[in-house]
């Protein structure tokens, strides 16, 4: 008998050795495998970098923005974008980019403002210039990433009140992108708790929750948000309004996530490894936390990534309609309000610029979500 066992083990030993010859990729964990697969998707990687930059810049926006969002340049109202160049009027190249000075005049017929370049006056751009003072995380400073001495720099022009649009977009982005993250975090918590309860407990609990989600999803989200925004007290401080709006957006958004989590929980619940864990002595909580949650988590992250755009767009749309974030607080939606008026848009087409920031952010989230989903696909080969 012992000999039999020994023989048995012997043949195994060789098997193991044979395997080891070619298992370079086999030592890695599941997470790392997904990471490696994700790296192969170039679009998603680029999007991930872009998103990191967007969040970084909007988070530390007082530093990256050349001006305070409320600084008004009364001489430069409705100024078109003025991009820095390297070549001056004589065709001479300068290593340091610069902007020309502009002079305001009025169209004699329509009385519209016009700005003409004064190519004699150059204002070179400088890094780390002193400007408007700000407070960032209890830290007072007046340092800005770039600017020009003696002349303002309007990368994306100014609005009807002479405020620098680029600075306002960065400050507005802080609100818009944060709404996305906080909103999804709230949706996620609701979705995971309710979805797991629904899937794991089953029965009547499941039926009630599922019907509830069905009702929730059968509302058209935007009109529902609009109607809910009625309940926001107008006199509240803007930060409370902001928080309420975020909660409001996520209340409508958790249903989809809860469904994803429920589906996964149901699938995992019948997996044999859950039964095996019960055999090993695992109770309900142990199984939920050690097995079902980690197994769901990757799919939930994908769903959450793809849910962020919805919430960002919800905020933007509501604010755009004047039902969300209220001035003086700024969000991308608030900034786009001006672009809604045809008369403004025809004279100041650059007012639409926030739209491209919205699109870039949403696109980045979608690309990353897609990349993650492909990386998680168990059938994709590696």
């Amino acid at each position, binding site marked *: 008998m012992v000999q039999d066992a020994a*023989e048995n*083990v012997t043949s195994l030993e060789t098997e193991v050795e044979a*395997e080891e010859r070619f298992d370079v990729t086999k*030592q890695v964990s599941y997470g790392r495998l997904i990471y490696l697969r994700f790296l192969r998707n170039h679009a998603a990687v680029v999007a991930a970098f872009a998103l990191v930059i967007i969040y970084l810049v909007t988070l530390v926006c007082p530093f990256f923005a050349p001006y305070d969002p409320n600084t008004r340049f009364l001489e430069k109202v409705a100024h078109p974008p003025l991009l820095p160049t390297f070549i001056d009027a004589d065709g001479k190249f300068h290593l340091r980019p610069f902007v020309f000075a502009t002079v305001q005049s009025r169209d004699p017929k329509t009385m519209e403002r016009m700005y003409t370049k004064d190519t004699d006056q150059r204002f070179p751009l400088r890094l780390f210039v002193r400007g408007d003072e700000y407070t960032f995380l209890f830290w007072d400073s007046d340092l800005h990433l770039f600017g020009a001495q003696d002349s303002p720099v309007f990368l994306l022009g100014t609005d009807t009140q002479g405020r620098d649009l680029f600075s306002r977009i960065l400050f507005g982005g802080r609100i818009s992108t944060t709404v996305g993250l906080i909103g999804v975090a709230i949706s996620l918590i609701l979705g995971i708790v309710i979805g797991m309860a629904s899937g794991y407990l089953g029965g009547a609990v499941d039926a009630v929750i599922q019907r509830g989600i069905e009702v929730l999803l059968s509302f058209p989200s935007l009109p529902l948000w609009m109607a809910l925004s009625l309940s926001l007290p107008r006199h509240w401080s803007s930060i409370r309004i902001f928080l309420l709006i975020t909660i409001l957006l996520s209340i409508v958004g958790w249903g989809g996530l809860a469904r994803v989590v429920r589906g996964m929980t149901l699938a995992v619940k019948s997996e044999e490894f859950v039964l*095996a*864990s019960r*055999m090993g002595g695992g109770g309900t909580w*142990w199984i939920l936390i050690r097995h079902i949650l980690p197994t769901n988590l990757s799919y939930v992250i994908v769903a959450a990534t793809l849910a962020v755009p919805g919430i960002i767009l919800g905020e933007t749309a509501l604010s755009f309609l004047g039902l969300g974030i209220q001035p003086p607080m700024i969000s991308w939606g608030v900034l786009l309000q001006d672009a809604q008026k045809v008369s403004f848009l025809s004279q100041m087409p650059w007012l639409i610029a926030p739209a491209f920031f919205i699109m870039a952010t949403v696109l980045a989230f979608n690309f990353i979500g897609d990349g993650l989903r492909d990386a998680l696909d168990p059938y994709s*080969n590696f």
Partner: protein
Amino acid sequence: MNNAPDSDKVLDIRNLEVSFRSIAGTTRAVNGVSLDVRSGEIVGLVGESGCGKSVTIRSIVGLVPSPPARFENGEIWLRTRRGMTETVSLFKDTKALRQIRGRDVSMIFQEPMRSVHPMMTIGKQITEGILEHEVVDPAEAYERTIEMLDLVGLPNPAGQMNRYAHELSGGMRQRALIALALVCHPQLLLADEPTTALDVTIQAQILELIRDLRERMSMSVLLITHNMGVVANLADRISVMYLGKIVETGTVEEIFKEPAHPYTQGLLASMPSLFSQPKTHLQSLRGVVPELSMVPKGCVFADRCPHVMPKCDETPPVVELRADHSTACWLYADVEEPHGPDAATTLPAPSDDGAQAESVPSVDVIQLTRSEPVSDTGEAPPVDDGSVQLQIENVALHYPILRGLLRRQVGTVRAVDGVDLTIRRGETLGLVGESGCGKTSVGRLVTRLVEPSAGRLRFGADGQLEEITHISQKEMKRVRRSMGMVFQDPLSSLNARMNVRNIVGEPLMLHEIARGKAVDERVGELLEMVGLRAAHQSRFPHAFSGGQRQRIAIARALATEPSFLVADEPVSALDVSVQAQILNLLLTLQEQLSLSMLFIAHDIAVVRHVSDRIAVMYLGKIVELGNALEICVRPIHPYTEALLASIPLPMPGLETVRELPKGDLPDPANPPTGCRFHTRCPYSQPICAEEEPVLRPLSGAADHFGACHFQDELDLQGVEEIGDLSPPAVVNAGENMSNTQAT
């Protein structure tokens, strides 16, 4: 067409090479395959999963998508109505290919459940094929379809015409698919594992049908399968394939009587048959089928071959052993060399080679050191001293069928309907039955992974029997410490997010047996016990093959040193050669650790091999219970006889006269009245439909139970009358058996 083969051949594949391109690189799935099928012949192509069988057969009709496939080399000649046609050159000409498909050559697939279009009636799907190829009016096509459905044995063929896939069972779908394939009378039928997804009794019916239709429609068949038994009584000739190469070709008699290639020998030896000595180690091929990208140079089988020699680094030549028997192996390259032909007739058995075992002295059999006081099972050999491990009485599991908005109960699925079983200490009880019979539910009931609807469960951890039917989950956790369970699917039974240390160590942590470093040590011990390395505990499940994963699952099941193990179909998802390794491991461990075991499987040959006693289950009821060998030799229930008759045995020329059970398994939600088997039983009498027989001892044999009204009168056939045929492979390990045999 000067190249064309002689007209006797229906199919002639010459040196086919197909490779696949992916990011990982190019792999050659089919590497120089030559194969022919003659008129009226059934040829079997046998091999384990991943060896290129499917790609070969699909290449014949251009069903391999290209890209990613590339046809590097070779020709495929097919006899069509327009003469011999080379099909590889047609792959770009879809129109010519379409004219061949369905008319000259047809194909049936592995998964009948998914191969019928879900949203089209059966009739429409079949007539569509006729109308595609022939100029007939729809009414005639309709008539011909009904005839064809009749021919393949579907009851009420006209009625089937308007039914949809979901209304048919798996066996009926495969019949419909055969009708669909043959309705235009092709000369060649390609069958890609046509019975793998079906139950054994249904499998036997379908194989019988293919044999019958070959005669009636005078066609040829190329059938691929992983199961040597399937082709033994069906094929005329067999080709054995391994890693993209044909390693041996011959008539069915030659292959089974005198297998030449070590791979063929290994495949035959690793199958538990109804004649092998129970509880002995099966001779298994070592290792697993490597991935295609890792194919060894030279002979592809070299790294698993017991006769490997230096010369195997070069590609072996194809040697003609006889007129109709050839193999690609260096053993036969030089016929003068003495060891060649000898090896062909006597099976190599590595266990005879004691030196080999000793040559690896570092590997010891790890004896389990029990941390608890040694139980009586550990001390005394498990003789029949009346101590019982598990006893279940009249246990039932009923699921309500809920319908409608208010979830009203409209019926009950009686998955398990009153089962009594007793497992003695150290004994293995085998539980066998077809899908849906409730055997898996019994396994989960005894461990209370599902709660019984009725009945009583008693379990003796290490002493007196204790009632566990209604004890709390907390109490149950303590009881489960003495229970282990191995599941069917090695893929889903291990959590892919956890490494092996946490998987195997989970019960240790939960029961607070070990903590921190101690877990690592204990897991290391357990892994070595099941034949893996302690160092593997940092790896994740995806780094292991199916067989290795099953070893990990066994290590986990044994982590808390249980005295009782439930093995739920532990080998059915594995390749034949790996299946033998796992069975051997279970037998070894059972003996070392004096485990009692409930072994659940659908294959009565596997169950017979590992069990002391066998319980046969049909639709939630035990229909026969008794000594393992006794049941197989002298069954007393017609269902047991049917199961035995349906097992495809790797023995050509074995014409069974026994009648196969009729029809399909009934719906468990609506089982037949009286004896549940009477709808399929060849011996059915009026009383069978009225009165339900109880499980009672056979007169004159107190330990053999049956649930048939006529068990004392019927003279049923087991496997005894062919028992004198020498089994193809029995490893002599006689001292191993029988002292654990109970009763």
